[in-house]
Every structure is written in structure tokens, then in C-alpha cells.
């Protein structure tokens, strides 16, 4: 079955639509369709992709208005003869479907997404023991692949550049909920700024579009509750 791909293009100056006809077969993904275009019609088409199996998070694009991973979306499952492919919202477009992720990763870095221990003894390393239920407290949030789908639909991210965004705050909660981590206070100071958890108003669209079902909305609600209590407690004790 032939399917028309309408791809949103941007060449650095102007944006326009390009149409391509793709001979879709059963099981063919949108990403394979994009590769088909690159190989047969237009070698200048730019898009990001790497693993082709939903692990790397490179190929998130907006397909028919919804952000999804191109490698996990089958063309025939979309049930439409014209498929609109656009770059993610809330990101600056560099070329065609490729968007600028620098700011996104800066924010991810800002929440210190790594284990913080009071003392690290690398000379005599010790095992950090964790029970299964302690693992399950954060396991789901550790599945994030940083594809940016949640960030692209978040209404707060769309209007404020320095808002941390759902992905970064989920990463923060993933470490705060980790029983081995001892950097709670440090991280809460960061997410408690006014570009942090307070800008979330539970539109919950991030959980709707997340391709790995990480549920960022839940993580942000829990993070906000914990950081509010932490901050207020600290304020009143100091008083």
C-alpha cells in the first residue's frame, strides 16, 4: 500500500512541506520510511536515529500531531494514507526533523542525575545493598530514554525557556527516591527554584505521550510534595 509522507522541512531560512510516496509493507516503521526517502528520493533529508529499537531516544518526532518514536510506530497501524511528520515542539529546529537538544540536556545535568554519597571510598569500595521494594520505588522512572517527547507537549515548557521540564524532574525524583542516594537536600534546592516543580500544573500530557510509560507527571507530583514538605520543614526549624 502506498502512503504519502508529508515531512516538515527547514533549511535554516524557510520551512516548507515535502511530500513523498512510500510503498509501505506490513511491519514497516515510520523510521524505515524516512530511511527509504533518504535512500531513494532526497538524500538531504535530515533526521536523528540510532538504535531503531526504542532504546536510544533519538528518533522522537511528531507524527500526525502526536510525539512518538518513529522507530516504534508502524506505518500501517496509523490507518491513514497521508502521514504528517514534524519536528518536536518546544525545541528549536536545526534542520528538517533535527532539533536542538542542548538546553534539554543542560537541564538534565542541572538536577545532578547521579548517585550522591556523603563519602565515596573508592579505595575500599563497598556494596550498596538494596531490597526489591526499594528498587521498585524508583525503577519505573529510571527507564527514561531522554527522547524529549514529554518536554515537547508540556505547556509550561512551551512558554518558559528555563523550566526544567518533566524529563529532568523525573530524573531528579528517580535519584531522590533511590535508597542509596544521599543528595536529597542538594537536589531539592534545585527543583524547588521557581523554574522547577512549581511550574507544573498537572496537564499530565507528558505521561500520555511517554513512549516508555515512565509517567513523568506522577514523578513530578511526588517530587513537588516531598520538596514542599522538605522546604517548609527546613524553614520552620530554622525559625
Amino acid at each position: 500500500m502506498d502512503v504519502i509522507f508529508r515531512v516538515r522541512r527547514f533549511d535554516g531560512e524557510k520551512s516548507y512541506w515535502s511530500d513523498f510516496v512510500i510503498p509501505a509493507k506490513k511491519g514497516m516503521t515510520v523510521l524505515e520510511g524516512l530511511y527509504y526517502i533518504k535512500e531513494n528520493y532526497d538524500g538531504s533529508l535530515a533526521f536523528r536515529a540510532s538504535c531503531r529499537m526504542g532504546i536510544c531516544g533519538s528518533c522522537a518526532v511528531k507524527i500526525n500531531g502526536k510525539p512518538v518514536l518513529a522507530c516504534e510506530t508502524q506505518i500501517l497501524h496509523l490507518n491513514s494514507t497521508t502521514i504528517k511528520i514534524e519536528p518536536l515542539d518546544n525545541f528549536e529546529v536545526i534542520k528538517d526533523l533535527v532539533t536542538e537538544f542542548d538546553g534539554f540536556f543542560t537541564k538534565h545535568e542541572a538536577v545532578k542525575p547521579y548517585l550522591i554519597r556523603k563519602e565515596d571510598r573508592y579505595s575500599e569500595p563497598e556494596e550498596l545493598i538494596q531490597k526489591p521494594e526499594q528498587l521498585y520505588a524508583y525503577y519505573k522512572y529510571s527507564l527514561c530514554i531522554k527522547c524529549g517527547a514529554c518536554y515537547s507537549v508540556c505547556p509550561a515548557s512551551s512558554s518558559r525557556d528555563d523550566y526544567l521540564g518533566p524529563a529532568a524532574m523525573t530524573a531528579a525524583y528517580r535519584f531522590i527516591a533511590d535508597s542509596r542516594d544521599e543528595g536529597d537536600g542538594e537536589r531539592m534546592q534545585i527543583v524547588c527554584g521557581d523554574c522547577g516543580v512549581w511550574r507544573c500544573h498537572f496537564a499530565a500530557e507528558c505521561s500520555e505521550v511517554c513512549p516508555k510509560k515512565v509517567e513523568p507527571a506522577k514523578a513530578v507530583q511526588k517530587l513537588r510534595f516531598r520538596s514542599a514538605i522538605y522546604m517548609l520543614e527546613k524553614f520552620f526549624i530554622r525559625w
Partner: protein
Amino acid sequence: MSNELNGLRTKRVLEPAGWVLQLITGLVLAVLVTFHFFETHMIHHSAMEYENVILRLSDVRYKIMYGLLLLSVSFHAFNGVRAIFLDTNYGSENRRFVNILLFLAVIVAFTYGLLLLFSF
């Protein structure tokens, strides 16, 4: 997209306090606004006549109830507007101005309403 996150520098207790109070006043309002609607529209049909309004405003119990309603609603409304402003780049650049302006708005709305409560 800027690489600098200027929202990281802020008064840490202001935001959590605002959030918690927004939720609490929200709950209070759900009850009081419903009551307000009931007593103006449903208990009896002359509730909005001048004498009855004055009568209610002179009653201490009503004064307390209206005072609480007024306080909650002024805070909830203008703190909500503050959140809307802070959701934008304009708000992140003029955080202090927005905070002060909307805090003044709460005070003005509250005292303006109190004038009415204390006139009777």
C-alpha cells in the same frame, strides 16, 4: 533556548508556601463559594434585597464567614495569576516585580472587601 537557568536562584520558601496555600484556599473556597451560592440563590428568594443584605452583613457569624471567603478568594485568585505570569519568560525575567505586584493585589482586594464588612 538559553543554557543559563536563571530560575534556580529564588527565595526557596516563597514557592512551596504559595503552592500549599493555593491548595488549602482552594479547598476552603469549594465549600464557602457553594455556601455563598446557596444562601444568595436558594434559601429564600428575597436574599438579594437591600435590607436582607444589610442584615447579613451586620451578623457577626456572616462577617467571619465573609472575611474568610474574602481572604481565601483574594489569595487564590492573585496567586493563580502570579503562577500564570511566572509560567512565561516575562515572569522569569521580572520575578520580583510580579511577586510584589500580585502580593499588593491580594492586599488591596482584601482590604477593599473588608471596608464593606466593617461598614455595617
